């Protein structure tokens, strides 16, 4: 799985003989070591779920959020180095604002995703800077309906119906593939996301974690919103229940 790129991995300016840029691959490692993030694009919106790993009981719940808004109608969720997430989110917010100033209209989700991707890619060109150690999922609703994109440290961006990043990416992707996303509403998707996060969470390796849920959908007035407390509690309870049912079946 891990290959050592001795000599060719010291700087992001250097290609390896087989055409890889090891520094970018190492940046992906930072993402792989962080808590799982899941995002789904459903019929009437986009939902985000984050397995936020907590290092200490002393941390105040609800802080160090990994989900946020880039504009009223676009939100993001991110896996990887939290400080890099904040820097990238700041850039996404600036791009949204500048677009609004120039074109007097909300930035389309795809345009924002591509701008963020282009920005991320620049940091893979020069030895003086390092690539972003975070993968950002950007989702929102514009004139073309709900859309979801994911930007990786290399600067690639693709559109998705459902995607995961972080520790349990493989397991989460398997779970996502089972879902019929085009027929699901955001409200249903929230429950599914919570279930997936709880399922793929590794109880042994990471004891403490906090679930974060956010959405952009009809129920939130087509605006980004951290899922309201009562719905969040329901989804979390259902996820815990599903986990118990799984255990009982085994």
């Amino acid at each position: 799985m891990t290959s050592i790129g001795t000599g060719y991995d010291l700087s992001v300016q250097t290609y390896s003989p087989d055409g890889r840029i090891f520094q970018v691959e190492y940046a992906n490692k930072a993402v792989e070591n962080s808590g799982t993030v899941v995002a789904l694009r459903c019929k009437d919106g986009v939902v985000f779920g984050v397995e936020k790993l907590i290092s200490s009981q002393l941390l105040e719940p609800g802080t160090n959020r990994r989900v946020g808004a880039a504009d009223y109608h676009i939100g993001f969720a991110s896996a990887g180095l939290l400080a890099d997430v904040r820097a990238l989110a700041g850039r996404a917010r600036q791009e949204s604002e500048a677009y609004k100033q120039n074109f007097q209209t909300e930035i389309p989700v795809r345009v924002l995703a591509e701008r963020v991707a282009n920005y991320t890619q620049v940091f893979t060109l020069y030895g003086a800077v390092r690539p972003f150690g975070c993968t950002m999922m950007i989702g929102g609703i514009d004139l073309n309906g709900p859309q979801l994109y994911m930007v990786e440290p290399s600067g690639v961006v693709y559109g998705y119906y459902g995607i995961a990043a972080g520790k349990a990416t493989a397991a989460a992707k398997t779970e996502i593939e089972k879902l019929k996303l085009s027929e699901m509403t955001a409200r249903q998707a929230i429950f599914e996301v919570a279930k997936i996060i709880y399922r793929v969470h590794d109880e042994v390796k990471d004891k403490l974690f906090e679930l974060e849920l956010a959405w952009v959908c009809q129920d939130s007035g087509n605006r980004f919103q951290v899922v309201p407390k009562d719905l969040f509690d329901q989804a979390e309870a259902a996820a815990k229940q599903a986990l118990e049912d799984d255990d009982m079946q085994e």
Partner: protein
Amino acid sequence: MEASVGYWPVKEDKVFALQSQQTHQMRQNYIYRPQTQPITHTTDPIVTGTSVLGIKYKDGVMLAADTLASYGSLARFREMQRLEKVGNSTLIGASGEISDFQFIMEDLNKVMTQEFVRDDGYNMTAPEVYSYMSRVMYNRRSKMDPYYNALVIGGLNAAGAPFLGYVDMYGTTYEDNQIATGYGNYLARPLLRKYQRNDMSEEEAKKLLEDSLRVLFYRDARSTNKIQLAKVTKDGVVISQSYELETNWDIGKGVSH
């Protein structure tokens, strides 16, 4: 002299363009002014709105203005909305230069977007908008480059109590139970002072503002009878459609010519 090759920019054009750019830049420094005077930019408004009125009442705050943007003595834009909402609990009304008001709104909307994405649990309410605008207006005044407006900022504070404030192009600010700008200062204020009470009902507040705007229409030569009312209550901000005030010109019959 080189022969012209027939497409733009010809060398002479480039030189001319550069010159006019340079002249433009140097102009401010070379316009005759005594050394003690600062560089001035816009000090004459072009497209303007007239009075804005605001009062506190039982459920919150109500603002009123006519929907005219004048171009000097020409009644140019007759459906100009001069009352705008800022977030869910603040109204802002402007008299004076309309382009400056439009820019102020752009800036305030940017501020509100940043507040939204920050999502820190705090909402910017009327007193904060008022404070922010007073800093902006005073700073511009100090650069002799004012936003040529008188702003009425009304809404609810974080505790839900009504708030009403005034900020103008000099950076002057005050808060009161009733505010008027422009000619309203002279014509409407006596009416507002006499009849405004903090426990007025919505109908009473509406009638008072309509009567005041009617007086302004009779006497302010840069006003119309097409007006808009706006209110802020705990249920949010509502800006009415524009409608015409009934007026009575019977007094004209008694005037002998």
